């Protein structure tokens, strides 16, 4: 009988009940009495000078209550970037102001330059169209291609900047000369030019926000689709609208997926608050999917040249990369850290390579802002590495499994500081590779290949090994690197008088299952039923503080904060128990929900101690406060370093170029696993997002900056019949050494490790068939594969 509760059990999710019965509470499900509706007037050109906004056209139209334009917000603050990155020459990055509504210029299709508030959604929409029709925007040449953007300094996304470069970053600059020299003198150098394709995150719930203002108190409330309501509160309050933080509550209720796109503060959130104040009524905005495509922060979009230097046996000597990373028209909140510290620091991979240098130029273009999307920088690093390693193996006639094996760090080398500045705490990359080889039945590949060939299909096998840095922290380190915030997390554990527990956590769950899994941890620590524990998240008025959920950090950072708060509760409980049991505190043991005096049968249950804390009739009042509630802020000593090995098998139809995934196998090291069912689900989802990137998805702008893939009619989302079952394993565990839970994080793994495995498999199939093809850029659509085969 499998365990049905506690740490390590696949406890079924409590949140499922409301989602399965249609009683969830997503932002658009909420109706506030008297609410009005906001619709945004968005640019239909990529780059243009706003000559006039036809706000007058909406005046007097049915239901119209107010119109806002960029002029109304030109004196408020801008939405800032969360990290200050410095260029190689020491200059600070260029940071143009990101306004609530565009004024002066529009800078991408979908850039909002006005908003109309009306009694009904349809009235607002009709009026927005009238404003759009009456507005005059002088179209300017669109800046779309990154190379052209850097070359042509006369046409600029931001007129006040000298060119379209945001920064030119080197990591680590002190490595540069040594790496150049190592590459120059190496016996072999493999060079690969590749594109990490632009993706649109596409959480299934479109963004939505409701602003409220309470004139009697001057309080504001923002209900919004956010992965981190406290960060949104900070940005709206301190940076954009100048509302005191204590007068603004931000609530993120049920949120239908994020994948990074809902980390950031967007102008729509500020607009509904400002409109609510002006109109003294609630104002609601819900994105249409078309708006999501145009305005949610996109992901990836790197153009990279990577060089791998090695000896003729395939021992790595150096990696060097040059990358152009698109940041779009404005800096989204994490846009500057994603292609730098979340990318360059991972460029040593799981390997003992002595020399690594990474150069990244970030480029403004007339496209939607680009920011962190599931994996965020780490998929880009992994893709570059794992693709160039395979190309080198082909060039030198080496076995890709053996080459990885001989270059892996070995377990005795930890802790290990990489040439790009990370200190890996623990890992066993040989173990995950061996496990993947076993589960993926690599030994049986030849027979399967023959069977595919008999059907006229080309079968290939691809490998990818990956590592990531997640649980993003510690604050003092990221502060030195340019972070403008701390990256700890917080939790309050409130034991109620009747012995049940309310836990307020800074992490936000939008699919990650915190309500179930966090309760498993608290239940195990307190020895009480999980059903008596409530996990509260997503409301700044209830939660001490929090940095939200992204970067696979919820459990490793917030979960540990919660565990630390539980430890404080237990420590206080021991003091209370010592008094009640007339013993010394040092004699009190706590186990399975019972405080007892060592070596005796005298004991008090957890519930009795809780009751005593709130009804303190027999209580050490002179030395101890009543109540049983503790808060912990936890700032980790290091990142966590999950890692793994992925093996993909594909069948390619040589007549059409269509790729089918025949099997996909993952062997991951996530450290200790709290709920295997949830972890496996996270990997399944991440892998399919990675398969989507590898085979299907591409955000395409034409030369005029029009988004050609602006709906599900033309942006290919993975569907049920595009993907296989995914074999997952997390048994090769090396627990994290610097958090007590021993956890590492699993949310992004699948999306990081899978794209190179798929592409390596397709190229393996083609090369085995005698096609000398070094590279095909993602997505590997039938057209691209067929064209490469028939070039």
């Amino acid at each position, binding site marked *: 009988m499998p365990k049905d509760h506690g740490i390590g059990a696949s406890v*079924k*999710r409590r*949140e*499922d*009940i*409301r*989602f*399965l*019965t*249609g*009683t*969830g509470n*997503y932002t*658009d*499900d909420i*109706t506030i009495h008297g609410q009005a509706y906001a619709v945004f007037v968005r640019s239909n050109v990529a780059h243009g000078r706003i000559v006039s906004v036809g706000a007058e056209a909406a005046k007097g139209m049915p239901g119209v209550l107010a119109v806002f334009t960029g002029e109304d917000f030109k004196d408020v603050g801008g939405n800032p970037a969360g990290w200050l990155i410095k260029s190689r020459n020491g200059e600070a990055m260029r940071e143009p102001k990101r306004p609530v509504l565009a004024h002066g210029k529009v800078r991408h299709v979908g850039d909002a330059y006005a908003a109309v508030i009306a009694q009904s959604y*349809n009235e607002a929409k009709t009026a927005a169209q009238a404003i759009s029709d009456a507005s005059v925007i002088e179209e300017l040449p669109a800046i779309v291609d990154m190379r052209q953007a850097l070359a042509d300094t006369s046409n600029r996304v931001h007129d006040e900047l000298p060119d379209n470069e945001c920064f030119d970053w080197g990591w680590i600059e002190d490595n540069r000369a040594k790496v150049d020299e190592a590459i120059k003198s190496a016996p072999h150098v493999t060079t690969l030019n590749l594109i990490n394709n632009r993706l649109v995150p*596409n*959480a*299934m*719930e*479109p963004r939505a926000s409701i602003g409220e203002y309470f004139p009697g108190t001057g309080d504001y409330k923002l209900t919004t689709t956010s992965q981190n309501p406290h960060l949104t509160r900070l940005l709206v309050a301190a940076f954009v609208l100048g509302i005191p933080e204590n007068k603004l509550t931000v609530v993120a209720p*049920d*949120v*239908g*997926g994020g*994948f990074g796109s809902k980390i950031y503060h967007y102008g729509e959130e500020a607009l509904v608050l400002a409109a609510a104040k002006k109109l003294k009524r609630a104002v609601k905005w819900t994105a*249409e*999917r*078309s708006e999501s495509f145009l305005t949610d922060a996109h992901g990836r979009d790197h153009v990279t040249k990577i060089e791998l230097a090695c000896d003729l046996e395939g021992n790595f000597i150096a990696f060097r990369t040059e990358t152009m990373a698109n940041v779009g028209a404005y800096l989204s909140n994490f846009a500057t850290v994603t292609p730098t510290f979340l990318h360059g620091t991972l460029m040593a991979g799981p390997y003992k390579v002595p020399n690594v240098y990474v150069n990244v130029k970030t480029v403004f273009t007339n496209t939607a802002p680009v920011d962190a999307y599931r994996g965020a920088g780490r998929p880009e690093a992994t893709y570059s590495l794992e693709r160039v390693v395979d190309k080198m193996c082909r060039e030198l006639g080496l076995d890709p499994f053996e080459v990885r094996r001989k270059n892996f760090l070995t377990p005795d080398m930890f802790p290990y500081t990489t040439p790009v500045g990370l200190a890996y705490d623990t890992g066993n990359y040989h173990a995950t590779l061996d496990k993947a080889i076993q589960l993926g039945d690599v030994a049986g590949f030849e027979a399967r290949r023959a069977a595919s060939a008999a059907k006229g299909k080309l079968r290939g096998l691809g490998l990818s090994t990956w590592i990531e840095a997640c649980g993003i922290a510690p604050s003092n380190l990221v502060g030195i690197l340019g972070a403008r915030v701390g990256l700890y997390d917080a939790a309050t554990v409130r034991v109620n008088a009747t012995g049940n527990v309310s836990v307020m956590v800074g992490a936000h769950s*939008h*699919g*990650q*299952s915190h309500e179930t899994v966090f309760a498993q941890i608290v239940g195990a620590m307190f020895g009480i039923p999980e059903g008596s524990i409530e996990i509260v998240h997503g409301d700044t008025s209830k939660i001490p503080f929090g940095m939200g959920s992204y970067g696979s950090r919820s459990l490793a950072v917030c979960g540990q904060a919660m565990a630390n708060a539980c430890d404080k509760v237990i420590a206080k409980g021991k003091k209370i128990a010592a008094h009640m049991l007339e013993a010394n505190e040092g004699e009190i043991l706590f186990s399975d929900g019972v405080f007892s005096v060592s070596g005796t049968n005298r004991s008090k249950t957890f519930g009795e101690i809780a009751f005593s804390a709130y009804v303190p009739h027999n209580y050490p009042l002179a030395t101890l406060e009543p109540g049983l509630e503790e808060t912990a802020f936890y700032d980790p000593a290091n990142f966590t370093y999950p890692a793994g090995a992925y093996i993909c098998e594909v069948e390619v139809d040589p007549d059409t170029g269509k790729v089918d995934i025949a*099997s996909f196998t993952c062997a991951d090291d996530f450290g200790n696993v709290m709920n295997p*069912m*949830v972890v*496996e*689900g*996270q990997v*399944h*989802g*991440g*892998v*399919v*997002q990675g398969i989507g990137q590898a085979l299907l998805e591409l955000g395409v702008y034409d030369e005029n900056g029009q988004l050609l893939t602006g*709906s*599900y*009619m033309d942006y290919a*989302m*993975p*569907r*049920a*019949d595009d*993907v296989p*079952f*995914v*074999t*997952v394993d997390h048994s090769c565990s090396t627990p994290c050494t610097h958090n007590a839970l021993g956890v590492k994080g699993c949310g992004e793994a*699948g999306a990081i490790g899978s794209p190179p495995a798929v592409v390596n498999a397709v190229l393996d199939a083609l090369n085995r068939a005698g096609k000398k093809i070094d590279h095909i850029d993602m997505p590997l659509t039938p057209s691209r594969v067929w064209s490469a085969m028939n070039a």
Partner: protein
Amino acid sequence: MTKVTMTVNGMSVSAQTEGRTLLSAFLREGLALTGTHIGCDTSQCGACVVHVDGQAVKSCAVFAQDVAGATVTTIEGMANADGSLGVIQAAFQEHHGLQCGFCTPGMVMSTAALLAINPKPTVEEIRHGLDGNICRCTGYHNIVKAVLAASGQDATAMAAE
């Protein structure tokens, strides 16, 4: 405005609607049945699937007035009479066939329609049958397992682990 009457989850309901009012809006705004979700504007994602006279229908692509008199079932009508989860709902929970929950109502409604015409679908038939419903969280792995289980088949044996 025209008065529209239909039976929703076993109850007769009436409301004044405009000609352009979609069934999805009628359910969400008119009846506060917010379990039916809107995930796109091109009838591609399937989050809004409901049953109209037993057929799976994308409620964002149907005018409320066009289904006057019909019998409509939404996710709110899928639990057992005693409030416990129905077979499909229970299978989705048992097999972790949902994460953020946003696509889930549509998935459950499409599954019910699929199983009504094909009580023991193969894995391939399930994947094909659900290709009008997009999920961004689960990679479909556990959704397919849940559908297998809901149809009385051994999900663990059929799904590679």
